[in-house]
């Protein structure tokens, strides 16, 4: 026998289930803590997707119980339930699902998630997964015990029965598995659900932890997210193999009709232009295209100026709900949000939303928290390899008042949240931990970050102007008077007049009177100085018990009952000073404090301010 024939004996097909049995890390089951998180994540994603499709406000219950060496994971929802005949394949057949072929924004896509959890459960404990589901109040609930036949990737139903369930509709999954429960880190079930709650403010999620502790992530809105729609593929997103497959299996009879009916952004005019460019007959049957002709057709796609794909297929969270979600889970001083317009990469529409929370309970030391989301699903692992992180690192945060020692993720008491919504999120791997570095996505994320960065800078500069004013108040009210008192005590002199110094520090208008007596006459000088950075125009009143003489510049004099009000109109540019002089007899004259009319009192030193 030839060697090749010998070898051929050993070659056989591998089932998908067997493949994943040996490569569990691909699906996110590579460590004990992570296996639990991934299972909960897949079940919760399914529940949220199902509720949204049925317009039901999600109410999700998650319980983790210790069971011997391992754990029992229960996830229950109030979703639409699952038709009995579908249950075994939904849970116990890999790559079975409703969303893989649909171009639509949804959490799950491949139909691997929950069945991978079932597989992991049976691999580590040998026990079946129990599913209870009910599709409406008039139906009875069904209960299944399921396993996956790993050789054939077909479900095995161990037991099925009708049962009573007090929910009107919903689904409950219970499985046992090896794992380890951690709480403290962000990469934990608690951390995951907290992040889910931030971007799904319409959901209520209850978590019962192994020690019996109950955490409720309450809903922040009763408003369902905008439903996402299924769209046709965009020509720019096509690859040759996909195109050939679509050509072969289409029901359309003519190439022209195929192009119009299959793709988005393609109408009658565009479709005939494509055919012209590809030098193909619009009337020919799509099934008859040769490989070379299909290649020309694809090339024609790329050369066209096409409208962007429709964007209403996406369901962004919205700035208001991002804010509500952040404020619900974090106590912070400030939140900025930004929603970018819909953009396109390789024919796939996508939209970026960014939120930035600042201050409050967020720790000031260390890197800022980065919360990454794709289609409302938190991404917990491989932060360093993610396009979102790279975009954050590309931004120069110093210009937005966050320090960024040595580049990279900035530091400070802030949290950055980035959500990417798309019909097709380009992940770096099947475990969906990180978004691939697609230039269009990185650029959009950067623009969103800069937008919230600008808002943060504005907020902080306003805040620092306020605190600067506060600091100055402390100096003039608390510190300067004490310094002058202490110095006067030491030198055994009168306390110095601190008004000129106060005026300079505060940028105020200063009025200072100095008096010199000589030859039975008293010469008075009023110094008026503007230390502020704006022009000050005001009236200065000097009330003296007698009428003043040699007044320079001249004043308007208004006799009062017990004295005379001398009035000057003064206008001073920033930094300008003026001296006013007059004389009075040395005996029997009394002054009152000078009055400034027309400058707010906190901007005046050494005089009384009146409106």
């Amino acid at each position, binding site marked *: 026998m030839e060697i090749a024939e010998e070898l051929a004996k050993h070659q056989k097909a591998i089932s998908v289930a067997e493949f994943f049995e040996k490569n569990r890390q691909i699906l996110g089951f590579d460590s004990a803590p992570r296996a639990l998180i991934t299972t909960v994540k897949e079940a919760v994603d399914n529940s949220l997707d199902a509720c949204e499709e049925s317009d039901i406000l999600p109410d999700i219950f998650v319980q983790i119980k210790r069971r011997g060496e391992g754990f029992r994971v229960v996830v229950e929802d109030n979703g639409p339930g699952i038709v009995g005949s579908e249950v075994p394949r939904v849970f116990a057949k890999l790559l079975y699902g409703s969303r893989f072929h649909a171009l639509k924004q949804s959490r799950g896509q491949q139909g691997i998630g929950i069945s991978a959890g079932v597989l992991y459960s049976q691999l580590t404990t040998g026990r079946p997964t129990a599913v209870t589901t009910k599709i409406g109040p008039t139906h009875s609930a069904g209960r299944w015990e399921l396993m996956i036949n790993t050789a054939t990737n077909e479900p095995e139903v161990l037991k099925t029965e009708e049962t009573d369930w007090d929910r009107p509709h919903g689904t409950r999954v219970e499985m046992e598995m090896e794992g380890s429960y951690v709480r403290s880190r962000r990469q934990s079930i608690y951390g995951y659900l907290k992040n889910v709650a931030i971007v799904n403010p319409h959901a209520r999620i209850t978590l019962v932890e192994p020690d019996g502790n109950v955490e409720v992530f309450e809903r922040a809105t009763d408003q369902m997210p905008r439903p996402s729609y299924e769209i046709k593929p965009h020509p720019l997103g096509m690859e040759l193999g996909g195109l050939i497959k679509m050509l072969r299996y289409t029901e359309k009879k003519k190439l022209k009709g195929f192009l119009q009916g299959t793709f988005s952004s393609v109408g009658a005019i565009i479709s005939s232009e494509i055919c012209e460019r590809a030098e193909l007959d619009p009337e020919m049957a799509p099934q008859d295209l040769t490989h070379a002709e299909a290649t020309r057709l694809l090339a024609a796609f790329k050369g066209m100026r096409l409208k962007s794909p429709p964007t209403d297929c996406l369901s962004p969270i919205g700035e208001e709900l991002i804010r509500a979600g952040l404020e619900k889970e974090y106590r912070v001083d400030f939140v900025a949000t930004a929603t970018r317009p819909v953009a396109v990469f390789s024919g796939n529409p996508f939209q970026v939303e960014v939120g930035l929370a600042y201050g409050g309970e967020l720790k000031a030391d260390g890197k800022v928290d980065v919360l990454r989301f794709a289609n409302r699903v938190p991404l917990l692992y491989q932060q360093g390899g993610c396009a979102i992180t790279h975009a954050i690192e590309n931004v120069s945060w110093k210009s937005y008042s966050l320090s960024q020692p040595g580049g990279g993720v900035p530091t400070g008491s802030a949290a950055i949240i980035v959500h990417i919504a798309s019909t097709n999120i380009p992940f770096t791997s099947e475990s969906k931990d990180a978004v691939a570095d697609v230039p269009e996505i990185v650029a959009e994320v950067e623009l969103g970050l800069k937008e919230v960065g600008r808002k943060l800078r504005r907020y902080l500069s306003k805040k620092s102007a306020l605190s600067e004013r506060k600091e100055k108040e402390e*100096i003039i009210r608390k*510190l300067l008077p004490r*310094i002058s008192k202490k*110095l006067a*005590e030491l030198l055994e002199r009168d306390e*110095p007049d601190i008004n000129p*110094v106060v005026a*300079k520090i505060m940028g105020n208008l200063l009025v200072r009177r100095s008096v010199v007596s000589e030859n039975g006459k008293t010469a008075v000088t009023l110094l008026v100085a503007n230390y502020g950075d704006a022009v000050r125009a005001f009236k200065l009143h000097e009330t003296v018990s007698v009428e003043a003489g040699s007044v320079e510049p001249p004043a308007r004099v208004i006799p009062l009952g017990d004295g005379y009000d001398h009035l000057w109109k003064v206008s001073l540019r920033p930094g300008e000073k003026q001296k006013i002089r007059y004389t009075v007899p040395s005996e029997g004259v009394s002054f009152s404090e000078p009055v400034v009319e027309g400058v707010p009192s906190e901007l005046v030193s050494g005089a009384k301010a009146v409106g």
Partner: protein
Amino acid sequence: MKEAAVTKERLLGLAETLYDQFEKGIVPYLALPSRTKRNIEYDQEGEVWVYGDQESVRSVKTVRGAKSVLKTSYLVELLINEHLKNNRGSTLREIYYISENWDVAKFGEQAESDRLVEDLEILTSLLREDFHVRPEEDGATVFGPLTISEKTRRGERTIHCQEDVGEAGYQIPFNVDNVEFKDHDAKFVVAIETGGMHARLIENGFDQEHQAILVHLKGQPARSTRRIIKRLNEELNLPVVIFTDGDPWSYRIYASVAYGAIKSAHLSDYLVTPAAQFLGVQPTDIVNYDLSTDKLTDQDLQALRSELTDPRFATDYWKEQIQLQLKLSKKAEQQAFAGKGLDFVTRVYLPERLSEMGMI
């Protein structure tokens, strides 16, 4: 030491400067030389390192500056009305505690009050002894053929630093200027970083055999230690060598004795012994004597690199030694000589190094 009257006058002068600034409408400030590595320069005349022209200004424009000026006024008041008037004194630590009653002028930590005392020294060109402020730490100990007399509160004592003292040696008071040198039979002074090596030299009778005065530095030396070394060098005309571990931190000990410390460069004239020579452990000794070593840590490497930009180490000798050590990436302790026998350091290493340096 200055007369109390002079001290009081200078402190009041400081208060008057601030008072006048208020009167003239100048926002009050105090200007001090900035006490950083970049602002020390070599003074040709005194052969020591002193502060340059860069100033740091403490203005009441900021809360920090205003608090600092307020604390200065409180401290000046304490020094005049408590210390000078009643001929009392406080330790640096006591000053920190006294400030408990100063309300917003209270010191946050002792380092702050220590610094402010140094600031006052600079602003008045006086010494903290003039303010009757004492350090916490003990002075160094001296062992060797030297007779001194010390003015104590209980009268004058005359002490021979070998015959009248125990194994620990003569402990110098914090105010070294109360000590007078009476007589000596010494040829040179060895200042030693560690207590272990100090004791080794005494046990091996190095002081007797070589007529050496041994001064224990106790790590980074106190002011009094540096002052007594300077006086031994200048008044008795004795050469001084410094014997430390072979690592970057020990070179700084040498630098503070021979060139002055960055923090107290204003006292360089009073504390620094420019003639002091570095004995070892040199990086070249690590190679020549094949000493047991430790690997340099990241901090060590950083300290060595920082010394390469320190003006005090900008000589060919130090550049060569530091570059060599960076290449070796190793350091050695003084006590590493014990690996060659307890007598090796006094029989072989010190005599070899000292004759190399022309001391014996």
